[in-house]
């Protein structure tokens, strides 16, 4: 075993020449040196011996000051803008050549021709498309040391710029890698791949070293000689712990150089590192550890981003709007981690292509599927089982992903000794489908389907069912190197039903659903090296059934109550420009013009002008016929972000956003199981609008191995809907009588220290955020808390998250997750009294008290089996404890009235430490 490891390491070293050559470091201030002077100096400091043609190097003048750097770094610098190459062999001989590289070792498959799979650090690079460069060269040489010539080679002096574009893919699956960073040191430049793994770089013609990184992957670099516009596709290798590569400095400096602010990008590999409940990777739980993101409590549906409500986040699962992103009332997220590629969370600068929500956009991307071979992931646990299969239907052309997940927690519940639980049922499933088809190099089709269903029944009393369903088709067309577009059409549906037959006479079924038909066209145009434009239009047609209450069972005496359907059209046109003013200063500016039409048929209540809206002030009803434009709201939205690089390791960013939201969520959090309804803006309910100012300072320490940032924000919100005292939300035919226009303000500061790589990696975030609301409605009757500012339901001032991973050895790593946050505000009933014959309750001011603080710590240990690369079966253990300190966090706090005796209860779902052990097999 040990011998094998040593052997494979040795083998690896031989192959990985570039890594083993750096045996000696070079220091010195070489000003106005000729190449031969430099060589003399290096040979005196080290054991290297140079072989070169002096005629080829005589024009070189060297000005460089170095301190303890490797020979390859030095030569990279020195030879960077030349057509010269160097090669170093294992004995320390350095060969300088013009235009071609000397192979100092035999190709790794020299002795086994026909074997194409390569597990070493060599990259099986396809030749750059459109170029005949080394097409016939089937020997795999190190792509890192190879010079890729783009365009027709010329000896003329190179002036102007050229576009380099291409795909970044996973070498194993062919899966495009989104949000990979492509960057250069000179000129200081960085771009990210888009969701299709595609990048576009505008560079001065000439020689460049391009670095490509994506976390969880080995960093790669490419030597490029750019003569004209062209393509370079890059395939990245997965970072494998057994390979003692210098751990990726993934996205090093990307936080400094990226123009966007307040955006968090995580790929599935980073997400999977975080310890999860029952070992089930949970995307939303990881998002919750990011600065500025909180949740109102364990098991709550969704996220509160920068003091926004859960309904103010646009959650997109491959462009499908997900209204309820959780399973089992929030204990699992609705996204199967095996089909997810990665997530992007925008919380301050929201790109103009997104709209319709005030707080944030969480964009969850789905894998495209392995285009090279069939593969699958299967998992079985006492709680869930899942299966994902992916592979090419037609190699290189069409690939599919099929994923499914289900639970059999019913079985578990039924086996519990407590009668309350063993008479309960809980189950869910979700299904994913994705088909990616390449029509030709210019046209691509993507078909995606998603469905999830939840069922929950507590003690055979009330049953809850909810479903998300969506399907969409995208057509991506590349017009030319500079111009591409995507056309998307899709449908989304979210529905739930609540039913109870516990008391047969009161048996009821309450149904709610919301349907969306979406159409959007998005275009990117790289105007020139300074301007990248994006523009497009989107349209959503909503149909919403706000409540359908029907008797259930033959004995039921419940009378039906149906709140009529409503419909609306929300459209937007947008245009944005990403403008690089200088290498240090850049601007992202966009405008989005949103148009909202509330459509008939609808019966609109009229109220006494100048009086508060209440049942008693209804004067008349206006009936509108189908398709009638009842009310139109339009608004321009502005999105601006500025970035200024103070130095190579620090930058400052500013952003300003305005947003509009036309759909509102109404949630009664006082109930044991909160049920949310959504409401479209109508003549009586105005759209919400918000603006956000934010400022961030980013500083990287210790040569970019530690990232720190501080962001502050201030937000204002108008027409936020809060509820009147005594509001009734469900089955309300005139909800406008029970809501109050409120204005809100939110502010906060977010601190992040992140060590993205290394033996010890992870992040620590602290968020201070406050959200206050104030009744802003002169006709509201009694304003909430006498018209002063009061904390919103989701106001949680302090939140601390720690994610830490420590790699003890190649085989053992430990991950810890610690979460602390202030408890959410609550309005408490304080006293009982009798007045006018009635017994009534005296409540505190709105949100005057808080439920207990939330604290949880999780720990997991991952033990990998051996890492022999050719071994067929790989195994690993993962064991851990969820809620290590057995803190009883409140899922829900509620009050019930039993025969006049009002009592408060606190429901903790995970009131104890939950250990788990997982055994993984991979073959």
């Amino acid at each position, binding site marked *: 075993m040990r011998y094998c490891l040593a052997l494979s390491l040795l083998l690896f070293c031989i192959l990985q020449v570039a890594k083993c050559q750096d045996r000696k470091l070079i220091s010195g201030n070489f000003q106005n040196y000729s190449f031969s002077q430099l060589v003399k100096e290096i040979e005196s400091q080290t054991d290297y011996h140079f072989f070169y043609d002096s005629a080829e190097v005589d024009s070189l003048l060297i000005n460089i000051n170095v301190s303890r750097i490797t020979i390859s770094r030095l030569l990279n610098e020195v030879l960077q803008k030349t057509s010269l190459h160097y090669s170093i062999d294992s004995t320390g001989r350095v060969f300088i050549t013009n235009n071609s590289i000397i192979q100092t070792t035999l190709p790794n498959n020299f002795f086994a021709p026909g074997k194409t799979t390569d597990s070493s650090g060599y990259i099986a690079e396809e030749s750059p498309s459109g170029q005949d460069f080394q097409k016939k060269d089937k020997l795999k040489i190190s792509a890192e040391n190879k010079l890729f010539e783009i365009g027709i080679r010329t000896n003329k002096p190179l002036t102007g710029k050229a576009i380099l574009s291409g795909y970044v893919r996973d070498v194993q699956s062919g899966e495009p890698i989104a949000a990979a960073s492509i960057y250069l040191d000179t000129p200081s430049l960085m771009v990210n791949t888009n969701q299709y793994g595609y990048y576009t770089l505008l560079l001065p013609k000439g020689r460049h070293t391009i670095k490509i990184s994506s976390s969880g992957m080995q960093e790669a670099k490419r030597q490029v000689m750019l003569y004209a516009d062209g393509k370079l596709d890059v395939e990245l290798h997965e970072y494998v712990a057994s390979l003692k590569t210098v751990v990726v400095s993934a996205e090093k400096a990307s936080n400094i150089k990226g123009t966007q602010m307040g955006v968090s990008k995580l790929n599935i590999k980073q997400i999977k590192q975080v310890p999860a409940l029952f070992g089930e990777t949970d995307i939303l739980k990881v998002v919750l550890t990011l600065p500025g993101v909180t949740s109102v409590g364990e098991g709550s549906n969704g996220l509160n981003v920068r003091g926004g409500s859960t309904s103010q986040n646009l959650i997109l699962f491959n462009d499908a709007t997900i209204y309820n992103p959780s399973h089992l009332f929030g204990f699992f997220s609705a996204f199967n981690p095996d089909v997810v590629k990665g997530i992007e969370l925008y919380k301050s600068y929201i790109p103009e292509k997104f709209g319709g929500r005030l707080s944030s956009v969480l964009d969850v991307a789905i894998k495209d599927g392995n285009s090279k071979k069939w593969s699958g992931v299967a998992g079985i646990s006492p709680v869930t089982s899942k299966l994902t299969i992916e592979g090419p239907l037609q190699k290189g052309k069409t690939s599919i992903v099929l994923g499914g997940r289900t639970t059999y927690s019913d079985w578990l519940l039924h086996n519990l000794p407590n009668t309350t639980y063993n008479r309960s049922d809980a189950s869910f499933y979700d299904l994913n489908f994705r088909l990616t088809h390449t029509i030709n190099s210019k046209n691509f089709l993507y078909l995606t389907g998603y469905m999830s269903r939840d069922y929950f029944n507590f003690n055979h009393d009330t049953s809850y069912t909810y479903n998300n369903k969506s399907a969409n088709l995208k057509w991506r067309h590349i017009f030319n190197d500079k111009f591409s577009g995507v056309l998307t059409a899709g449908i989304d549906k979210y529905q739930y039903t609540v039913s109870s037959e516990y008391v047969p006479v009161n048996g009821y079924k309450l149904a709610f659903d919301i349907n969306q038909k979406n159409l959007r066209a998005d275009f990117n145009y790289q105007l020139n090296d300074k301007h990248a434009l994006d523009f497009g239009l989107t349209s959503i047609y909503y149909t919403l059934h706000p409540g359908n209450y029907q008797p259930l069972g033959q004995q039921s005496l419940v009378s039906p109550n149906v709140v009529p359907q409503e419909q609306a059209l929300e459209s937007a046109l947008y245009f944005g420009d990403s403008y690089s003013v200088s290498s240090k200063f850049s601007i992202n500016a966009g405008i989005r013009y949103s148009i909202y039409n509330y459509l008939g048929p609808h019966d609109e209540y009229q109220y006494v002008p100048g009086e508060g809206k209440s049942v008693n002030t209804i004067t008349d009803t206006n009936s509108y016929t189908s398709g009638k434009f009842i009310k139109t709201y339009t608004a321009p939205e502005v999105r601006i972000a500025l970035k200024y690089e103070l130095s190579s390791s620090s930058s400052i960013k500013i952003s300003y956003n305005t947003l509009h939201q036309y759909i509102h969520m109404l949630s009664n959090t006082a109930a044991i199981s909160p049920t949310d309804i959504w409401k479209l803006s109508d003549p009586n309910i105005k759209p919400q609008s918000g603006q956000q100012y934010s400022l961030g300072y980013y500083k990287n320490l210790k040569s970019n191995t530690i990232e720190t940032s501080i962001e502050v924000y201030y937000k204002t919100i108008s027409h936020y809907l809060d509820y009147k005292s005594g509001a009734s939300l469900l089955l309300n035919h005139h909800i406008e009588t029970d809501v109050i226009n409120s204005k809100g303000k939110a502010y906060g500061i977010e601190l992040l220290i992140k060590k993205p790589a290394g033996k010890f990696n992870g992040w620590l975030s602290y968020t201070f955020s406050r959200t206050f609301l104030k009744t802003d409605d002169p006709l509201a009757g009694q304003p909430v808390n006498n018209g002063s500012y009061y904390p919103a339901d989701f106001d949680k001032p302090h939140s601390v998250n720690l994610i830490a991973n420590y790699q003890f050895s190649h085989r053992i790593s430990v991950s810890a997750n610690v979460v602390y946050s202030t408890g959410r505000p609550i309005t408490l009933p304080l006293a*009982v009294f009798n007045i006018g014959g009635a017994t009534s309750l005296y409540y505190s001011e709105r949100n005057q008290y808080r439920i207990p603080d939330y604290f949880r710590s999780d720990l997991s240990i991952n033990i990998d089996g051996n890492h022999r690369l050719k071994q067929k079966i790989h195994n690993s253990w993962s064991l851990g404890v969820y809620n290590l300190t057995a803190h009883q966090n409140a899922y829900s706090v*509620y009050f019930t009235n039993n025969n006049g005796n009002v009592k408060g209860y606190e429901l903790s779902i995970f009131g104890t430490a939950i250990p788990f052990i997982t*055994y993984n097999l991979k073959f």
Partner: protein
Amino acid sequence: MPKYKTIKFSILIFSLLTLYSACIKSYSPSAITAANSYLVVDGFINTGINSSTSFVLSRSRNLADTSSFIPELNAQVILADSNGTTYSLIDSNGNGKYTSAQLSLNPNDHYRILITTSNGHQYQSAFVSPKNTPLIDSVTWRQNPLTWDLTINVNTHDPFNNTTYYRWDYSETWQHNAPEIAYWVLVNGYVIPLDADWINDPRQIYQCWTTAPAKHITVGTSLGLSQDVISMQPITIIPLNDERITVRYSILVNQYAISQDAYNYWVLIQKNSQNLGGLFDLIPSQLNSNIKCTTNPNEPVIGYVSASTLQQQRLFITNAEVGGGWIKQEPYNECSTLILPTDTSNFQIYNYPDTSYAPWYFTGNFVPALVVVKKYCVDCRVWGGTNSKPPFW
């Protein structure tokens, strides 16, 4: 090399302890367990001619406190007008109900209530301007044709369109009879025959009358109507076969004109008295009283002081008038009898030790024997109320 499939089996081998380790525990933070004993002021300033004003003072209690009513005793309650004239309200019965003498207050003045509790805290209401309550047009009833439940409605209007906001409360009185008639009743240890006109004999125990105050708050408004009219405002609902209409029922409806703020206040009280914790629950409401504690401005006070005249109207409903075959639904109570030998010296002497029995009638040809029966069969008072007929009956 042949293609190989990568299949990852992730098998969660076991999970220690129960997975759903949920627990429900009592939630009682200090804010809830505190005494939360706030002053509750219930009443109105009656600006009618020769009318007395009454306020009931009580204390709220925390959620765990099961006592039903905590009267606030030994307080000084003063009714004051804007000129400083004061009238004292006296708790003559020591039950927390403070009543003034008969007054004829000037309807154009402003009034307020000043309270000093026995612990020295001082409270005062805002000055309120009296409102003139319009006459009640009628109190009517109507039965739901499906369920036969009976609703009492009030109808009123203000010809001057000045009132807009109304509050009602009521007092119900109903007659209920014992299952059996006893013409002999127990008086001071003797079984005494009733008068020939037994039904009007004050000693009869067959007919009883129970009076109860309102159990909920009713407010209404004519806002949104072109005239100040309240039509068919429900006051209370009596479910089919309720004891209250098994013989004869009466309701006295009190009508008060109130301000808009008072209306809002009572609406919230009304809402807060409903159930909590369920799916269809309401958002908790706060109450903003027009009474403030002057010695401690942060101390909450419950209640809303209004001033108005009072309008009343009484309605009677007899069992024969209602539909649906209205019969009292009560648990089966067996009226089995015992026959007791009578005292030879005086057959009217009653000394049967079991107090759950009552005399019914005498039997036997020569030596009378006393038939006794469970008390609930012949004495309506067991079922509540009093056997003296109210004056308005």
